[in-house]
């Protein structure tokens, strides 16, 4: 045993010395550091960008936007060039002064973008962000196994759905749709309304089979759950695997979100970042990005490049009259957040 250990130890030492010495010597190349969720940009698009411009891409992942923002603050917006994140976290980053203004002259393709998705609350003057894709959580269900009629959020409370529902494991979204089901806004801060929503939410617990925001589509595809309130791309995934599933645009109105590209304040490779932004605004590239992510396209010029089945997909191509009735999930007061957090903990604990 002694010899074994000594051998293992010397092997460990050898490997670490070897690797440490080789680690230091990497040549300086033009580089672009991207920070986003895993698998959120088509790797083919990234290699095309590198082939066109010679800029190497270094893609870093985060799993939660809160982690991303904490990291951004600690590095004072320094280490990353391009970040793709959702509207509410960009709004916080903007209020903390962590964003860098985009020089639009270097992004001529900006003009391709659909104005509907520009100058939103998180970037009212359109100075910092380029919309990447948009989405809205929807209800999707298996008509073969669901006996009740599903028209909106309120249907999720139906007694026949006991232990069958999957909704995202996300406090604001779940309490948000509960308030919407009662006819209030997602962003209500009135403590009485929140408290009432809390009571109503508790009644939903028996119907919940699982809370999952990452892979709820797998639970629907496997037959573990029959109804889900899930994100756009996940709805698409369900429909691709199980075409018989039905999509519901909730009658009470829908939440909405836009994920955008932005540069942090001290981005080290600004030129490369601007080139990348321009690249992503090219109509054909934008179309491919939407097809890859299965989210709503934000580029007016891209429509001609979108294939038939993408345009027929109810999750990513929502009729304009339905999409009129949407609401962003904005940041709310500390008091309201705390109250919701208490409700959320009780809901999960019960």
């Amino acid at each position, binding site marked *: 045993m002694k010899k074994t250990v000594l051998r*293992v130890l010397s092997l460990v030492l050898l490997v*670490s010395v070897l690797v440490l010495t080789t680690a230091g010597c990497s040549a300086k190349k033009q580089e672009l550091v991207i920070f986003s*969720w895993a698998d959120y940009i088509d790797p083919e698009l990234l290699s095309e960008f590198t082939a066109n411009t010679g800029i190497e891409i270094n893609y870093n992942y985060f799993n939660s936007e809160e982690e991303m923002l904490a990291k951004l603050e600690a590095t004072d917006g320094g280490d990353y060039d391009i970040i793709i994140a959702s509207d509410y976290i960009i709004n916080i980053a903007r209020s903390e002064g962590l964003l860098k203004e985009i020089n639009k002259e270097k992004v001529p393709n900006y003009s391709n973008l659909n104005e509907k998705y520009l100058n939103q609350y998180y970037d009212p003057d359109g100075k910092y962000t380029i919309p990447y894709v948009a989405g809205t959580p929807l209800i999707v269900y298996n008509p073969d196994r669901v006996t009740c009629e599903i028209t909106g959020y309120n249907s999720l409370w139906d007694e026949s759905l006991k232990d069958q529902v999957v909704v995202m494991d996300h406090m604001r979204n779940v309490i948000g749709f509960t308030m919407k089901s009662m006819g209030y806004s997602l962003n209500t801060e009135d403590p009485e309304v929140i408290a009432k929503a809390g009571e109503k939410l508790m009644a939903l617990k028996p119907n919940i089979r699982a809370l999952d925001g990452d892979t709820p589509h797998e639970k629907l595809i496997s037959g573990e759950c029959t109804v889900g309130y899930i994100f756009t791309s996940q709805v698409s995934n369900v429909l691709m695997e199980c075409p018989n599933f039905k999509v519901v645009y909730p009658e009470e109105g829908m939440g909405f979100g836009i994920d955008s590209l932005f540069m942090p304040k001290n981005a080290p490779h600004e030129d490369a970042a601007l080139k990348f932004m321009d690249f992503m605004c090219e109509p054909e590239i934008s179309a491919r990005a939407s097809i890859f992510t299965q989210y709503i396209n934000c580029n007016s010029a891209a429509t001609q490049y979108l294939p038939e089945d993408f345009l027929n997909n109810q999750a990513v191509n929502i009729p304009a009259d339905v999409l009129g009735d949407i609401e962003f999930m904005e940041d709310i007061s500390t008091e309201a957040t705390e109250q919701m957090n208490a409700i959320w903990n009780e809901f999960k604990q019960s």
Partner: protein
Amino acid sequence: MKKKNGALSKLYVILVLFLTYLPVFVVVLYSFNNSKYGNWEGFSFTWYDKLFQNRQIWRSLKNTLILAFSSCFLSILIGTAGAVGMAKSRFRTMNLLENVSMIPMMLPEIILGMAYLAFFSILKIPFGMLTLIIAHTTFCVPYIYINVQSRLVGLDPSFVEAARDLGASPTRAFIDVTLPLIAPAVLSGALLALAMSMDDVVISFFVTGTTSNTLPLQVYSMLKMGVTPEVNALCTLILLVVFGCIGLYYLFMSLYRRRAEKQ
């Protein structure tokens, strides 16, 4: 002398090993699955193809190996020396030191990660391999320490004393007497530490830099986004390497022994 195992105890050992490997077999099997979601739809190498095209993964693998081996090595040195030294020391802050050094094991990763994030940015240490090694070494030390320490308790100190009486220097006595006695504990502690380091996601996320991403970070993100088959393929390869190493080691050892016997 100790008794040999009966059929029942052998069966038990095999059963536990089987259950340990059951989900692993599933992972290996499904890495050859044609379909992305669960159901078996035929044999295919699609995911291996995809895996080999993903250059980021190979870069992360290199980082992980650097990190795991150097932090494991450092923590073996620090933890073993600490446990052996503590057994010989008496000082007032001893208990305190021991308890504080265990904290990384007890604290949720997220809070430790946040603390390191703030700590390193206050100290202006740039995030990268150095910060990763510091963090991993710190949380690996307790695993070595606790293993070696529990082995030392109840070891007969007279062995070491005898060696010293026979004129061995303290270092000599350590290498010839103590080390062989604690070797299995060092090894199992090291295996645990290696596993912890290879499995850490949260702390690594907070202390990593842009060029030092590790494999667990990548694997975790991919799993969260449901890119499972590719990860299955990756882990099958890792398992293959691990078992390859174990196999080679045993082959080497038996050859070595056979030669020693012939001589």
